[in-house]
């Protein structure tokens, strides 16, 4: 029999964060679709760049945070670090997948192809495949400590690939455009840079909202599984009320 329990309400700060994110997303879309000037080469198609680049950068952030919580789990062994690492890995997978799909939609009208085995594209596809592998491996291991350790190592491996992914566009000059915003300089008009950074900020807020909610769910699920284990341990001598 399934018994319904009251789901704990989202904390106020999380609801405010979610609502602010929706409003700022609308502002970011307005800036990208209306305010931003057209590009001298790409024309109106440049407006897709704001959506694509912002999700790509945030996928990198999510991978780095996954690796950091993975390291924390390897060091301290606290289950909460594993819960946080998994939440970040799930959102990194989501953003990496969205980067690939939005990149293909952007690439078709600008570069006349959906896909090519360019170094940056291949490394991004590899990152996505490794993140999917992270969850496949987790599903194969029953012991929570071992599962956390193995997936932490995979998370770190994905993070190690990031610098190569970031620099691939500069090292291998093939189809993917080179870096417009780099440590060495910014090669983008100030009006476009503002719109880009605003949309990156909005994507970061989307990430924060999703990851906070996902961690809250992870904690709830952990709590429920502990309750279930306790019930199963006490079951033989216990009088169960129906």
């Amino acid at each position, binding site marked *: 029999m*399934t018994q319904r329990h009251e789901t704990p309400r989202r904390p106020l700060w999380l609801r405010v964060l979610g609502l602010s994110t929706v409003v700022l997303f609308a502002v970011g879309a307005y800036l990208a679709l209306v305010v931003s000037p057209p590009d001298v080469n790409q024309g109106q198609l440049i407006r897709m760049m704001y959506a694509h680049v912002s999700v790509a950068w945030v996928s990198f952030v999510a991978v780095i945070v996954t690796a950091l919580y993975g390291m924390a789990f390897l060091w301290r062994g606290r289950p909460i670090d594993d819960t946080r690492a998994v939440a970040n890995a799930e959102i990194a997978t989501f953003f990496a997948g969205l980067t690939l799909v939005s990149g293909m*939609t952007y690439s078709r009208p600008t570069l006349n192809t959906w896909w090519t085995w360019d170094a940056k594209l291949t490394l991004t596809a590899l990152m996505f495949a490794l993140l999917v592998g992270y969850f496949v491996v987790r599903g194969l291991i029953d012991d929570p400590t071992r599962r956390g350790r193995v997936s932490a190592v995979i998370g770190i491996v994905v993070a190690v690939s990031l610098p190569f992914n970031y620099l691939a566009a500069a090292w291998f000059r093939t189809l993917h455009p080179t870096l417009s915003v780099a440590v060495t300089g910014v090669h983008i008009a100030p009006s476009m840079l503002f719109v880009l950074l605003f949309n990156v900020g909005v994507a970061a807020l989307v990430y924060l909202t999703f990851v906070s909610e996902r961690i809250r769910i992870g904690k709830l699920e952990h709590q429920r599984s502990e309750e279930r284990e306790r019930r199963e341990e006490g079951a033989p001598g216990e009088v169960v009320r129906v």
Partner: protein
Amino acid sequence: MSELAVHWRWVAAGWLEVVLAYGAYAFYLARRARRAGCREDER
């Protein structure tokens, strides 16, 4: 169809897929949160 109209269709498609993906993931999280509030009780 003019080149400008074609460009705008691609731009709309690019933004729409991001909006749909965010919406779908938010929906998945909401469902999972509701499920996490349930537990299976043995009779």
